[in-house]
């Protein structure tokens, strides 16, 4: 589990890849469409875009209301991922709208949405479709009077320094709106949440009712991994990606440590690696099963057979498939409910196998591997195999309980033989 904490909470870095297109063999996205409100963002957020292009992404910048933009042409998607850095767009140009963005994500592509304190209803709608609800008050910003970043110019405590996660060198600066997640939604995850003293309100006006979003229910940055493994990053601060925040130093209120550089660059680089499938992407190949002792795959098993199931799982490292090592991959032998659930043992090189005895229920079973871990794509493998009962000649052949019957038959035969001899030849 420690490894999983490490992966999700932005520890290691990975190297860019050099292949051509987005395909199951190379799951990292290649062509990214970036929609901006105005091209000044290209310049003021150039460090972030530079980090993406240096890892091999091809970014295409377009204005959000440019009438020529479109995500697909003739049924083919033109881009592998979409980045919406246009918090104040009222209406997308071209053929893009909320429904087409939802279709884009449904077809397995990734999305980054950054809102800001003047977020339009359209961006809020896109976020709601992804499962995240921004604060409805349009003038609200996230304010934290205890965890703000000390600054000579932002005296209203809307610049928040958040270090609510493990292993970051410096706190991350955030200035914008917060959102909340539905607790019933199991696909959404809070990556950076506000502290319990934070609340979302308009800094200029007094509060008469308690705000709807308070405390650590406010999420600053969230990610969604859909069931088809499309990944979405949603955050309420576009300025978190800006060069100004990347370069500035941080001093959290109440602490005397002054960090030279905020953790924004490290945080956002790592999380965009995750969103664009450079990390945490698994594939399972070579599912095999056979009877213990044999090597070819039978078409049907008999009850009480000993069988062995094996699978190989690899993880995409950004450039190549590395073996995935974990100790909690499980296989189920399933017919309406799992009859057998076993943890697969690994040889540390990505090969997992398990042996078990086929249950004595016959029917059509499935070998099911449902592997879902935080931060990884979900693996869902299923292979059907029938199980038959004993044939008539597979039962026990000679039963001790039947010895009297054998004895009676053979003694009868022996008696008959003796009788024929005796009867014919005795006088």
């Amino acid at each position, binding site marked *: *589990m420690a490894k999983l904490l490490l992966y999700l909470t932005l520890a290691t870095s990975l190297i860019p890849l050099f292949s051509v297109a987005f395909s199951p063999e190379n799951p990292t996205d290649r062509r990214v469409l970036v929609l901006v409100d105005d*091209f*000044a963002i*290209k*310049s*003021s957020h150039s460090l972030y875009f*530079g980090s993406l292009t240096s890892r091999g992404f091809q970014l295409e910048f377009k204005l959000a209301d440019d009438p020529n933009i479109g995500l697909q042409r003739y049924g083919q998607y033109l881009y592998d991922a979409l980045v919406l850095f246009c918090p104040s767009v009222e209406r997308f140009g071209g053929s893009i709208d909320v429904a087409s963005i939802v279709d884009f994500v449904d077809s397995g592509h990734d999305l980054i949405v950054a809102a800001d304190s003047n977020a339009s209803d359209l961006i809020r709608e896109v976020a709601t479709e992804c499962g995240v609800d921004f604060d409805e008050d349009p003038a609200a910003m996230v*304010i934290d009077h*205890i965890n703000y970043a000390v*600054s*000579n*110019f932002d*005296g*209203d405590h809307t610049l928040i320094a958040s270090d609510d996660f493990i292993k970051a060198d410096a706190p991350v600066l955030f200035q914008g709106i917060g959102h909340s997640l539905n*607790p*019933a939604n199991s696909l959404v*995850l*809070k990556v950076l949440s506000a502290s*319990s*003293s934070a*609340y979302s*309100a308009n800094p200029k006006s*007094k*509060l*008469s009712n*308690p705000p709807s979003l*308070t405390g650590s*229910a406010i999420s600053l940055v969230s990610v969604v991994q859909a069931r088809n493994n499309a990944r979405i990053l949603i955050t309420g601060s576009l300025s978190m990606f800006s060069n*100004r925040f990347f370069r500035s130093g941080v001093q959290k209120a109440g602490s005397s440590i002054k960090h030279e550089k905020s953790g924004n660059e490290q945080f956002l680089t790592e999380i965009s690696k995750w969103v664009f499938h450079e990390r945490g992407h698994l594939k399972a190949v070579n599912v095999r099963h056979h009877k213990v002792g044999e090597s070819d795959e039978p078409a049907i098993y008999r009850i*009480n057979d000993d069988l062995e199931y094996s699978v190989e799982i690899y993880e995409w490292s950004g450039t190549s498939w590395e073996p995935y090592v974990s100790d*909690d991959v*499980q296989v189920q032998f399933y017919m309406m409910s799992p009859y*057998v*659930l*076993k943890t697969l043992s690994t040889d540390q090189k990505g090969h997992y196998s398990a042996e078990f*005895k086929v*249950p*004595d229920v016959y029917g059509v079973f499935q070998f099911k591997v449902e592997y*879902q*871990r*935080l931060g990884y794509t979900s693996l869902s493998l299923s292979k059907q195999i029938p199980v038959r009962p004993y044939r008539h000649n597979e039962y026990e052949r000679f039963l*001790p*309980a039947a*010895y*009297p019957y054998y*004895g009676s038959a*053979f*003694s009868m*035969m*022996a*008696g008959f*033989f*003796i009788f*024929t*001899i*005796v009867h*014919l*030849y*005795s*006088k």
Partner: protein
Amino acid sequence: MVSGGSDSNSHLFLPQSLTTSFQSCLPHNIFLNVWGDGINCWQALSQSDGRWRYSSNNPESSTFAAGIALEALSGVVSLASSEIDQFMIGAVKNDIVKLFDSIEKYDDGTFYFDEKLVNMREQQGPLATTSSVVRGLTAFSSVITESLNLPGDKILGIAKFFLGIGIPGDTKNFFDQVDLLACLENNRVSIPLILSLPSTVISLTKKDSLKVKVNTVLGSHAPPLTVTLVRAFSSSARDNSIIENQELKFDPQDAVYFLDDLPASFDVGEYIFVFKMLVQDSEQQTVYATGTLTQVPIYVTGLIKIENAKIAVLDSDLGSVETQKKLDLAGESTVSVSANHLQKLRLSFQMSTPLGNAFKPHQAFLRLRHETKVEHTFVVGSSGKKFEITLDFLGLVEKFFYLSGRYDIQLTVGDAVMENSLLREIGYVELDLPEPPENASRPPPQPVDPYTRYGPKAEITHIFRAPEKRPPEELSLAFLVLTILPLFGFIIGLLRLGVNLKNFPTSAVPATFAVIFHLGIAAVLLLYVLFWLKLDLFTTLKTLCFLGVFLMVVGHRTLSHLASASAKLKSA
């Protein structure tokens, strides 16, 4: 090369090559044509609104091109200084003034030039356009003797626009920005002076003083100025100005203007300070652009006193105090109280600013959190310095989803100007609420810790059906012995009866047949045993066919021989 003049098909006007090519080895009298060519180009390509066209083929006029043109004209003027026509200079100056009509502005007082051309493939952004215009007009103003009368506030606005974009990430934008600021740093039109504050947050506890810096755009020193704080007022009471017309003193060491001491009546809060600066030397006033009034929002922070904090449980009907405990909000101690739904909980405290005035913080929340993590947040109301909140549990029973038990109490008080914002766990209250009725609403589901959401499931091993109970083996063996006993009994009985083999045929052939007959019977019986052991019915039947036929033949011989032998005996 300029290829213009009388040829009406002018090609693109390239200013850089103009000056360099003419500074090369051409004789002096050729230079006279520069002025003529310059005038001809100006007539051909400049437009009435101050903009220029890129070429006579392209009907679109561009501000960017105007900037380049002005730079080129300044080169022309500097080369052909003896031939200058004052009328033409005046016309160009008018054009520049008209160009400034097309300037655009934002609400915060910044100005910039922008253009949208239809025919050009690449748009020059506002940075490139403004930078080229400013470059052109500073170059032009440096070569002419009279001064250009340009509105100083627009130059200041352009400077503020370029200073406000931070450091652009694009190298071309960065070049344009630095180039323009360098032109504005020292030019003959007007040099903008920027008023900035190193810190807009003043802390009363640290006794910060208000500091103001005035510099040129690239940070060099400004000439001696008088900086006056015209007004300072609280952002909530705009009409009431606390300070008026206070001149700031100059500290030559740090080159800052500072206000010695804030007046004693300065309390914490958000203020707006309005500054005005004036160049001391009246002759230089036209050289510098200082703008009129600059408004700066200032936060004055300080420690807010919170005292007299109490928590009490009151009886609902009578209002009498049942339990009351003092809270120490500065320390770490917690209190615990208990209440039922007929009572009220009251929390009260007093807040005052360092100067003793009433203070209303932006955030004053009381949060009750149940053991099941269901939370309820309330705003603590205030009247003057006294803050009080009374929770009447009778009315809140439904809001609390009828959940009884321990509720943790958390108080959060914070404001932008409070240096000691606090988040305190005060303690807990044991609440006893009645049972929920059938149609009461359920508490909302709480978020699940994501790390525990996915994990390996418990292993399942199939429990095989127990085989049917079989009788013990000894019983079977016992009955086996019992079934074999009759055979032995039969043999013993036969021996007792005195059986013998006297009737066995003596002659060779019948004896052989008899032996073969019995062997055949034994073979059939053996076949039966083999069938029982491992053969299948088909081979058995096949073998049985052959054996049977053989046995029939042999048996017939034997039995007929035996029958004839006994018939002989009977007849004899």
